[in-house]
């Protein structure tokens, strides 16, 4: 039952093959049985889920047309949910219960979905391995000795292990696409401004964007259809009509020009991963696409620019966690300053503190121009690279990650090694473009992904390409052995 895609579940519910309560219970049972291994959920909302499911069943019986009525999904624990703890995987918010829903959550509720729970993640979405969570690391269902990627590692692991048919996620520098690649999923980061950020706890406001982790591109289209759209509560959310993402999934790829940036096939790329990506590109050629080598000359500067901009924004975004109105407060502060300093030092983990300090430094007097302003200028150059490229090609493709999932602790104490994990994904965030990662092969029995970068608001095109690719291949249908042969229950 859990091998079904989200699309299958929608159909099954409509044809009354099973009820929402049945399918919800099935996933809840799997979570209860298996998640001790994966640690993909921070909070499981079993009771609430079953109530929602029963209500959905009633609505379905009454001919309810809400698009995802009764479909169970999981939300990354960065999206605020009324009455249910939203921790952002931080000790700081271990006891925080938002009195409001994120717009994304509201949209899914309106679409009739059932929330199974809140998924684990890197603390405040800062990390690429899900090792920075206050609630412990998440394990990759393909190899539990490896990381699932991050920051949306919990959402990715939950879907990969089929503890949920699909999940919401967020991507600031690759936090959807990298775990999608490492967990064999389809991960979509929409154009900046396509999905509301209201109620999505901010890491770096000008880079953060909500998106999806699903089994297929078709599932992603279903979820994006619900998530995307204008929100008057978010000044940066764009008021632009949302196309029917499912309607164009089967469009022909004849005449499609795919740009292949030479910078994305650099030294650091695992040769087997490169082969997988090259094979996938060949497959797309068979479907009618033409490949064209292009250059994105400032790619190498994306990681340095990102590690100024994202920390700078986060250093201010995370100042509200001060122990005054909500969140962790230290025991018996001796004065105000002591309260601030100890509450924040205790509430935040090392990586979060590191980024706050880097951001504070880059913005401090005397360094603003050299770091922050410089990084924003480089950001402009990176955007211009893409703008020029898109004057020649319809979509840009390359690997999502340099290699498949790595082992826990592999990046050691070196923050920079971890930061370079996002080398292919980060420029997309800096430019605000949509990006998608789809499974395209295996390296050492671990999945790797093909990254597709679209022009602004070209999500439908990315989903169309990914869907046609998935019609022609079966990488996305591969399951971790334990899930496939059911040995895990």
């Amino acid at each position: 039952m859990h091998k079904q895609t989200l699309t299958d579940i929608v159909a099954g519910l409509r044809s009354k093959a099973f009820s929402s309560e049945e399918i919800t219970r099935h996933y809840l049972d799997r979570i209860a049985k298996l998640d001790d291994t994966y640690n993909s959920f921070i909070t499981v909302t079993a009771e609430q889920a079953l109530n929602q499911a029963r209500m959905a069943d009633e609505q379905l019986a009454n001919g309810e047309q809400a698009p995802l009525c009764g479909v169970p999904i999981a939300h990354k624990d960065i999206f605020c949910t009324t009455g249910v703890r939203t921790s952002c995987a931080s000790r700081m918010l271990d006891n925080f219960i938002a009195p409001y829903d994120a717009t994304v959550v509201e949209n899914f509720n309106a679409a009739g979905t059932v929330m199974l729970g809140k998924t684990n993640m890197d603390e405040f979405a800062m990390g690429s391995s899900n090792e920075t969570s206050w609630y412990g690391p998440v394990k990759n269902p393909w190899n539990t000795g490896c990381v699932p990627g991050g920051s949306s590692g919990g959402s990715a692991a939950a879907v990969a292990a089929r503890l949920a048919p699909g999940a919401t996620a967020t991507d600031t520098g690759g936090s959807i696409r990298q775990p999608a690649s490492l967990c064999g999923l389809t991960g979509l980061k929409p154009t900046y401004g396509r999905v509301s950020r209201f109620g999505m706890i901010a890491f770096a406001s000008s880079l953060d964007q909500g998106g999806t982790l699903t089994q297929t591109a078709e599932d992603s289209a279903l979820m994006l259809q619900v998530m995307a759209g204008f929100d008057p509560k978010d000044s940066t959310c764009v008021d632009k009509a949302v196309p029917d993402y499912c309607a164009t999934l089967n469009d022909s790829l004849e005449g499609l020009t795919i740009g292949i940036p030479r910078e994305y096939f650099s030294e650091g790329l695992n040769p087997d991963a490169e082969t997988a990506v090259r094979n996938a590109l060949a497959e797309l050629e068979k479907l009618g696409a033409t490949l064209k080598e292009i250059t994105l000359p400032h790619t190498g500067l994306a990681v340095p620019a990102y590690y100024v901009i994202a920390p700078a924004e986060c250093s201010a975004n995370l100042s509200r966690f001060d122990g005054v109105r909500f969140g962790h407060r230290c025991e018996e502060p001796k004065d105000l300053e002591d309260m601030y300093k100890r509450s924040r030092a205790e509430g935040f983990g090392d990586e979060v503190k590191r980024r706050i300090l880097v951001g504070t430094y880059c913005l401090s007097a005397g360094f603003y121009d050299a770091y922050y302003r410089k990084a924003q200028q480089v950001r402009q150059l990176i955007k211009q690279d893409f703008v020029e490229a898109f004057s020649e090609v319809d979509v840009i493709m390359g690997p999502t990650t340099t290699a498949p999932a790595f082992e826990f602790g592999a990046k050691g104490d070196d923050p920079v090694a971890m930061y370079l994990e996002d080398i292919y994904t980060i420029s997309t965030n800096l430019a605000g473009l949509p990006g998608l990662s789809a499974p395209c092969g295996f390296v050492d029995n671990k999945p790797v992904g093909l990254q597709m970068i679209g022009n602004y608001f070209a999500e439908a095109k990315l989903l169309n390409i990914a869907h046609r690719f998935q019609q022609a291949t079966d990488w996305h249908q591969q399951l971790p052995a334990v899930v496939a042969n059911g040995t895990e229950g």
Partner: protein
Amino acid sequence: MSIDRSEVEKIAHLARLNITEETLAATTRSLGEVLALVDELQAVDTSGISPLAHPLDTTQRLRADEVTEPNRREQLQENAPAAEDGLFLVPKVID
């Protein structure tokens, strides 16, 4: 640009983060590594390039001046570490 311990202490104070003597060395080292990475930016000629703060070239939307938020004090203060008589309590503020 490298960073030394006193600078780390200064920014930790600005960021209101307690840093213990034991962790100061490690923090200084790891910040140094990150700053070495971002220092790659210094090699780029960006003269005449306008800084990009937002990925999309859009402008601020405006809200009508209407009171839409009712009083939800009780609910909003449920998360407060310390509150009394409707006020959030903090260690004494000295001007």
